[in-house]
C-alpha cells in the first residue's frame, strides 16, 4: 500500500488531482475517525477532516517521501483538531455542564432512525459516558489517547505524529489513562 501511496503522491506533485482523490479514498475514514474522536461532533469532525485533506494537498511538496505518509497526514489532522479544541474551549465547558444535550444528537446520529434493542441503548449510554470522559480530557492527553486506543498506533508513531519525545508521549498516555479512570471507574 505504501508503494501505491508514494506513486500517487508523485502524480499529485505533477498536478494530477485525480491521484489525490485516491489518497482521500484511502485515508478518509481514518482521518475522519481521528477528528471525530477528538471533537465528538460530526459536523466539526467533517470540517476538520476536509480541512486536513485540503491542507495536505496544498502542502504536499513539504511531505518528506522517506517518511510514512499517514504520520504526516495524521499530524495535520491532530494539529487542526487541537487548534479547534483550544478555540472553542468555553463551549466545551458549557457542554459538560449541560450534560446530555449533545448526547441526544449523538443518539440520533448513531441510531439513524432505527429502533434499537435495549442492550444497544445501554451501550449507547456507555458510549455517552465515554464521550464525556474523553471530552473532559485536556487536548494534549486527548490526542495521545485517541491515537493509541482508537487508531491503535504504536507509541513511537504517536511521538512522530505529534512531534514529541517518546518519553513525553508515554507520560501523557499514563496521565490520560488515569484521568479517564476517574470518570469511567463507576461504570
Amino acid at each position: 500500500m505504501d508503494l501505491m501511496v508514494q506513486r500517487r503522491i508523485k502524480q499529485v506533485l505533477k498536478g494530477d488531482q485525480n491521484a489525490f482523490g485516491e489518497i482521500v479514498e484511502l485515508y478518509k475514514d481514518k482521518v475522519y475517525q481521528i477528528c471525530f474522536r477528538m471533537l465528538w461532533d460530526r459536523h466539526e469532525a467533517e470540517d476538520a477532516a476536509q480541512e486536513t485533506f485540503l491542507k495536505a494537498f496544498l502542502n504536499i511538496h513539504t511531505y518528506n517521501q522517506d517518511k510514512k505518509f499517514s504520520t504526516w497526514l495524521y499530524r495535520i489532522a491532530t494539529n487542526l483538531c487541537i487548534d479547534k479544541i483550544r478555540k472553542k474551549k468555553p463551549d466545551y465547558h458549557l457542554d459538560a455542564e449541560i450534560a446530555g444535550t449533545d448526547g441526544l444528537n449523538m443518539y440520533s446520529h448513531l441510531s439513524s432512525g432505527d429502533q434499537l434493542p435495549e442492550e444497544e441503548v445501554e451501550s449507547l449510554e456507555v458510549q455517552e459516558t465515554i464521550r464525556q470522559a474523553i471530552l473532559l480530557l485536556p487536548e494534549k492527553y486527548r490526542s495521545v489517547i485517541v491515537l493509541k486506543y482508537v487508531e491503535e498506533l504504536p507509541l513511537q508513531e504517536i511521538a512522530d505524529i505529534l512531534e514529541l519525545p517518546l518519553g513525553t508521549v508515554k507520560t501523557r498516555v499514563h496521565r490520560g489513562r488515569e484521568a479517564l479512570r476517574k470518570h469511567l471507574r463507576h461504570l
Partner: protein
Amino acid sequence: MTSCPKQIVHYMHEYLDGEIENDAKEELKLHIETCEDCKHHYLELKKTIAFVQSASHIAAPAGFKARVMASLPRDKKKMGVERWLRNHPFFTAAALFLLLMGGGFFSMLEQRDHQFAFTKNSELKVENETVIVPPGTVIEEDVVVKNGDIRIEGAVNGDVTVINGERYMAAAGSVTGEIEEIDRLFERLWFEIKSLFK
C-alpha cells in the same frame, strides 16, 4: 494504598504499554496479589481501556471525498501544466505560437521584418533581391533567404530555407539538405520558434 511503593502505579502503566522490565513486572505482580487497593486500581485501568476501545468505529460521511475534491483549488492543476511545459520547451513554443496567432502580433511582425536578408556567404551573388548560387560553386552551409528569392545553379551542401520568396532550381543545381519554402506568415513564425530551440 498510601503506604504502597510509589512506583507501583507507574509499573502498571508500563505494563499496559508492554514496556516493563522483568524485575519491575515481578514486583508489580507480587504487590497486586497482596494489595487490594492496587489490584482494584489496575482493574479499573483495564476497564477504562476496554471502554475507550469499545467506541464504535465510524466511517467518513457519504459524499465526503467529492466535497474534498470540490474544495481543492483549480490553480494547482494549472501549475501542473506550467511545470509540464517547462519540462517540454518544444511544446511551450507551440503553445506560445498558438497564443500569438490570436493576437495582434502578426501585423507588428510583418511591418518590422519585411527586409530582404540572406545568409552571409561570399560565394553567393545577389541580383534584385534574388540570391544566386552561381554555377560551379559549392556552398558549405545552410542558406536562409528572407523576403527574397533564390536561384540555385551550383550546389548547396546544406539546407535551403526560403521565407516569403521563391526558389528556382537550375537543372545543374543541387541541394544536399532539406529545401523548405515558408511563405505563409504563421509557418514563418513557427520556423523562428523552432530555431530558438535548436
